[in-house]
């Protein structure tokens, strides 16, 4: 309606010809409700487990009870005889190995000869109901030969026999040794050096939606046998899933269709192919019926793929002026039983020592170690979080040693972009200086730091993250994202993208970029996403790549279509195609855009009074679609009308589209994105991981209080400034910043995977202690826009980069509050108390086995106790774990 009115006024010449300011945007930069928000708030949206097919069976998986054992035999006959059981699948039904990384094809959907962790997948029952499937699991007879198991990464590295994977000597999945610059010389030049061991906890994604997969085969009309496979799955990476299914099932990829329904959160836990996704297809093939498998919450914890427990030996040198001279890090990651993303994780840990600060000399030794626990994989802030905790804590210590303010030491070590770091990372846009300024100002750092009452403190830390990896997992010249756009005579814009909406706002971003580029309203745009039959390849939603890469591909596709429309519109308006302006559902000649562009009325203040844009979207977005259906229906009369009117100054979007279709035929456009060669990193071994076309930056101040009686740490507020390039949708960007900081706080204070003899002790949401709303602090997100030269409209990453800074910001705030420097996370009351007592030279409390968390020296399995291999407290004589063999070995 509004656009019609504007058009009429333009035609009458009755309005001022406001020159369009191209710096203004009509869609992006405004807080917009997600395009799928109503589906989510009304419960009508479908997640995988909400789907059902006629004749669908329920799949249940039998898991290994042993951390490390050889399978001598599996007998499924008793289970198969149970009424209601349709099929029982075992390893030899699909024996091909797979893994997310080409170098890590070490998993089988169902175990072939060995199980490697408690929870490893052994067999799958497809039955008519869940209860029958569960009964059948108990009727499967598996004969195991229990093997010695490894739970401590440093112990595991000494292993000579009974290796977890025969081809991995000393149970080391991969080790890297990098030297950039001259670290020895750097340390020689340093005025102050700190060296310490840090232990970071193992955490998991715990996305609210448990993994779920529904697999169904069609019958081939020509052969009469099972033909094409369709898989609906809770995945961040439909294309990789299609690829791995093809590998394991020995089917061509063209015969497999992967559809991603709504996904209830991923955080990296769904960024690789989880065995159940393949098991469902194997079971469906064997049962000749659709099979759905949904993990229980406990199974989700066993499936894991979270952030590994990490031992970091870190040494940093600085000069008295605050400049960092050298960093040396030795990192050991407790990777679990399979490679998963491990090789990438251990490389990120080293590579992302660079690109935040200017560090001239870096030495990095990284070890990814196999242990008999569920595999660790990618989790929000992949690879960088634990090392960042160590680095930022140590930088704080060094600032104190040289008597410098912790904010200032960070400002002394800024990069001077554009530049290439010593380890080959190209940095262009760099909003870190502004991030630091903003949080120092907002938190009242200068006035309040060190002046809060005893027990209260402020801490600062910074972090960064990639906007997508510059090199894809599968090395090829394939574009990382491709997007198709189709516009038909109704003026509706359909964007086909493989990018996966997992709650981060991928579909909304796609619609916004397309609408902005085409100058049409958001409601015209429909996004069809993540269906391998319909949408072109996109490698998935991980490493924060979607806005940058799929956004750029969308922009390019839209630009291509726009050229077609401009050519046709230019003819009608007697102007050059490149002069044509697209805006507010109008296509017009330069100088005639009638828009007065008054920013729509906003209610700029949130609860806390801080300014924020209105979340109510653009004013004209809802109104203009329905108004002009005659463009499509009454084509003849419209042409007649156009003839009568002669050349015009402006057309509605539909009129321009109809003109373009008359002129060119169908309107379609394709755009793809591959990172530029200059951004792809150096030549050393392992150089492929770390490079990104752009990096996001974050700086945070945390305010905490510490109860010196109980050891409890309370986070009161976190100020988080994040450089996201440009905020395409501020409400979504703020949501990602707050969510990252909150998840970082969970890792800092409460969340931890607790193990005992390879058994997870807390496989439930209450025991895992994801923070609830009463435990969650106020988080003030501050958006910093550095306008990246290569990002879509300047945008880059916003979903992961803020997580890593939160943990050290809290650690540094605890130091400011009570003077203890915790080197082991999470900062539980036990650890805080032990550190406080150690500081006072009091007799240590035995809560953490006498280990001082400010100077941890060894890996501890269960928040403090060495339970395994007889090192723990005495067990009851009937406890099967009492003997040297692992639990249950007597069976």
């Amino acid at each position, binding site marked *: 309606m509004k656009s019609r009115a504007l058009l009429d006024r333009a035609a009458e010449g009755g309005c001022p010809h406001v020159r369009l300011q191209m710096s203004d945007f009509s869609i992006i930069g405004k*807080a917009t*409700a*997600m395009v*799928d*928000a*109503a*589906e*989510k*708030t*009304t*419960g*009508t*949206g*479908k*997640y995988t*487990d*909400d789907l*059902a097919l006629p004749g669908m069976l329920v799949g249940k998986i039998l898991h290994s009870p042993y951390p490390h054992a050889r399978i001598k035999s599996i007998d499924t006959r008793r289970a198969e005889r149970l009424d209601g059981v349709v099929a029982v699948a075992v390893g030899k039904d699909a024996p091909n190995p797979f893994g997310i990384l080409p170098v890590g094809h070490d998993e089988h959907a169902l175990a072939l000869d060995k199980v490697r962790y408690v929870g490893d997948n052994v067999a799958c029952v497809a039955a008519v109901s869940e209860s029958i499937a569960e009964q059948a699991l108990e009727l499967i007879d598996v004969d195991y030969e229990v093997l010695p198991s490894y739970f401590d990464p440093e112990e595991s590295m000494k292993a000579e026999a009974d290796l977890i994977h025969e081809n991995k000597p000393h149970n080391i999945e991969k080790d890297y040794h990098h030297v950039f610059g001259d670290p020895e010389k750097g340390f020689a030049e340093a005025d102050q050096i700190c060296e310490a061991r840090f232990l970071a906890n193992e955490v998991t*994604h715990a*996305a*609210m*939606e*448990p993994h779920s997969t529904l697999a169904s085969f069609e019958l081939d009309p020509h052969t009469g046998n099972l033909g094409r496979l369709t898989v609906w799955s809770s995945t961040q990476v439909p294309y990789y899933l299609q690829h791995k299914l093809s590998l394991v099932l020995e089917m061509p990829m063209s015969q497999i269709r992967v559809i991603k329904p*709504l*996904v*209830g*959160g991923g*955080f990296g836990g769904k960024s690789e192919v989880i065995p159940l996704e393949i098991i469902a297809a194997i079971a469906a093939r064997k049962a000749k019926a659709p099979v759905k498998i*949904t993990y*229980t*919450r*406990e199974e989700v914890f066993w499936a894991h793929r979270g952030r590994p427990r990490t031992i970091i030996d870190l040494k940093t040198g600085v000069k008295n002026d605050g400049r960092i001279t050298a960093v040396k890090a030795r990192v050991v990651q407790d990777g679990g039983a399979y490679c998963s993303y491990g090789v990438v994780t251990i490389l990120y840990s080293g590579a992302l020592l660079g690109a935040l600060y200017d560090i001239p000399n870096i030495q990095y030794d990284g070890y990814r170690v196999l242990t008999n626990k569920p595999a660790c994989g990618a989790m929000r802030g992949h690879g960088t979080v634990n090392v960042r905790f160590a680095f930022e804590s140590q930088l704080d210590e060094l600032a104190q040693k040289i008597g410098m303010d912790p904010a200032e030491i960070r400002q002394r070590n800024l990069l001077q972009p554009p530049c290439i770091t010593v380890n080959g990372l190209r940095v262009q846009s760099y909003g870190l200086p502004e991030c630091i300024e903003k949080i120092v100002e907002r938190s009242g750092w200068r006035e309040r730091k060190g002046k809060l009452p005893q027990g209260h403190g402020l801490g600062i830390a910074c972090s960064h993250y990639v906007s997508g990896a510059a090199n894809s997992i599968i090395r090829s010249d394939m574009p990382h994202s491709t997007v198709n756009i189709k516009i038909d005579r109704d003026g509706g814009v359909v964007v086909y993208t493989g990018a996966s909406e*997992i*709650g*981060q*706002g991928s579909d909304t971003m796609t619609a916004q970029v397309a609408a902005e580029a085409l100058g049409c309203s958001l409601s015209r745009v429909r996004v069809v996403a993540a269906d391998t039959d319909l949408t072109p390849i996109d490698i998935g939603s991980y490493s924060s790549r979607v806005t940058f890469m799929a956004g750029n591909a969308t922009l390019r596709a839209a630009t291509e279509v726009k050229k077609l429309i401009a050519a046709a519109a230019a003819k009608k308006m007697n102007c050059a195609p490149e002069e044509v302006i697209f805006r507010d559902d109008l296509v017009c000649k330069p100088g005639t855009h009638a828009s007065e562009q008054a920013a729509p009325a906003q209610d700029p203040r*949130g*609860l806390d009074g801080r300014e924020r844009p209105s*979340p*109510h*979207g653009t004013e004209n977005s809802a109104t203009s679609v329905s108004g002009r259906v005659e463009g499509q229906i009454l084509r003849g009369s419209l042409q007649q009308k156009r003839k009568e009117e002669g050349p015009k100054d402006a057309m509605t979007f539909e009129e321009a589209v109809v003109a373009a279709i008359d002129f060119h035929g169908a309107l379609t456009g394709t755009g793809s994105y591959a990172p530029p060669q200059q951004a792809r990193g150096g030549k050393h071994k392992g150089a492929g991981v770390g490079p990104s076309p752009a990096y996001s930056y974050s700086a945070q101040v945390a305010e905490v209080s510490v109860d010196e009686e109980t050891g409890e740490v309370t986070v009161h507020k976190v100020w988080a400034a994040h450089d996201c390039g440009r905020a395409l949708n501020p*409400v*979504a960007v*703020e*949501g990602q910043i*707050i*969510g990252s*900081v*909150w*998840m970082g706080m969970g890792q800092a204070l409460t969340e931890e995977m607790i193990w005992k003899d390879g058994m997870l002790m807390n496989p*439930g*949401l*209450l025991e895992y202690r*994801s923070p*609830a*709303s*009463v435990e*969650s602090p*106020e*988080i003030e997100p501050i958006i910093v826009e550095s306008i990246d030269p290569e990002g879509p409209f300047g945008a880059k990453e916003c979903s992961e980069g803020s997580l890593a800074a939160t943990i050290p910001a809290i650690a540094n705030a605890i130091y400011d509050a009570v003077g203890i420097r915790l080197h082991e996370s999470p900062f539980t009351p036990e650890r805080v108390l032990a550190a406080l007592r150690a500081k006072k030279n009091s007799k240590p409390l035995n809560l953490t086995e006498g280990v001082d968390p400010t100077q941890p020296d060894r890996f501890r399995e269960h928040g403090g106790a060495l339970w395994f291999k007889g090192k723990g407290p005495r067990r009851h004589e009937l406890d099967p774990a009492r003997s040297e063999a692992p639990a249950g070995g007597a069976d």
Partner: protein
Amino acid sequence: MKKELIELRVNRRTHEIAIEPNMLLLDALRQTLGLTGSKRGCDDSSCGACTVLIDGTAMLSCTLLAASCQDQEITTIEGVSEHGSLAAIQKAYGDWGGAQCGYCTPGFIMTVKSLLADNPNPTETEIRAALSSNLCRCTGYSQMYEAIRAALDAERKGIAAVR
């Protein structure tokens, strides 16, 4: 197990269904009635994604027997939309980013409805305490408080306009 006929009254409509006596309310809603808006996020009443209203009180449908809910008025997320349009709280959750992946959202909205029915003008502390029965992994909860405030404001204005 032999099935039994029970009558469930859900979102102001009565359904006669045949269920095994040990069927949970959540499964009856999702599988038998096709009301998949209520979600299963855990199996031990720790996450709140399955929250429904039973006679106006927020309850976890994953740990209630369906058969025990006969003769009670059950409201699920599907019954929240008003006259075919979004309720103020649903609109506000969308506008203020209270929902990201959306999996926990139906449970939260039922919890908020129950809170506001008991206490139409809650303080921030009261909101935080009430929301603690539900878990969210995406939002950090902050944007939900803003959404709840905005919904209350909208409803207040709506009422004022009618008057």
